[in-house]
């Protein structure tokens, strides 16, 4: 189960006090660094919750499908 090179990783951001989510909601930053979800699957968006790792367990073709906005519900890794 090696990490796939194209599996998305969150972006680490420092030195900001507010992050505005895709829906326009402002989220206060309460820690020295935050991880912004880059896979669109987090249940804690805009923060990463580790769900992106589930993509690494899947075959490449399904990974592409899952990441399209019209691909339906995110896969549950548990």
């Amino acid at each position, binding site marked *: 189960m090696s*990490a796939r090179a194209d599996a998305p*990783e969150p972006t*680490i951001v420092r030195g900001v006090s507010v992050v505005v989510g895709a829906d326009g909601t402002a989220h206060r930053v309460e820690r020295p660094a935050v991880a912004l979800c880059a896979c669109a699957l987090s249940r804690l968006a805009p923060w990463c*919750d*580790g769900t992106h790792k*589930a993509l690494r*367990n899947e075959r490449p073709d399904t990974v592409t499908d899952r990441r399209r906005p019209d691909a339906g519900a995110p896969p549950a*890794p*548990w």
Partner: protein
Amino acid sequence: MSDIVIRPRPAPDHQIAVPSLPRPCGPVSQAVVTLLREPATATQAERRVRAAFHPHLDPLTDRDFQLGLWCLYELHLDGFPGTDPALEWSPALLAARAVLEEPFEAALRRLVGPLSPDDPIEEVRRLTGSGRPPRLARFLGRDATADQFRDYLAQRAVYHLRESDPQSFVLPRVHGRAKAALAELQYDEYGAGRPDRLHATLYARALASLDLPTGVAAYVDTAEATILTTVNVMALFGLHRRLRGAALGHLAAFEATSSIPCRLIALGAHRLGFPAAVATYYEEHVEADAVHEQVAIHDICGGLLESSPELAGDVVFGAAACLAVDELTATALLARWERAA
């Protein structure tokens, strides 16, 4: 002036009988506890602990061995009430510690087996890359009874009530990028400036919400061998400058295998209708450890290896040791609950 009188809540029974020293459970821990009570020379201490240790025992799963070692490491943390604080640097107790640390480290290296340190960062990512939650977290999330879940919280208390402390020993031993990133991660573990958000305090609050004690001493005598192993591994790596690479590899693996399990454990706490403080601890770790994973792998380990590439093997060793000991603990806890069922 107000007439309100605040009476302290009577302590539950299990808080009354906490001894100031752990209860020995075999010859090694007995020898160590005796050394904590009565002065000895380094030679006497070494001879006694060596005589108590049977080389055919597996140090990683032998409770007596791990308890003896735990007592010796405790001298560097909170110490024991009623014992001389100078024991921390007593040649006798340092000699005793060295006798146990040698087979302990050797057993860890045997457990993880041969490693590939050619691309250490990629190797740590590979070792921690699974999105599948481990069986212990799955069990807690879906199946554990309230008693089993409480037992899990009590077992893990010897670590979480001291959360992140072993890694603080590493700070003065690393520099530049690694130091800045480790300080940042520790600052977050320590509440980011808010004492009520200290992760150890969040855990204490979870325990208190279930009327469980909030001091480490109350949990040592009932802690499984491998639970003590998990904290002793961190102390071994944290207290030896020589093993700083292993300490940081261990930290990276620990953080990188936390978010997904913590989410499941939080769901278990909700499923069982536990007070909010229990799920809060785990939910904080879903979010925090998704950050800590990246910081620990890329900035802490990456920064360390930039300036000290010779530590590549140690970083991978520390990460592999974390994961392998975690497996031992999962096996032990699931077997413990099976036995009790």
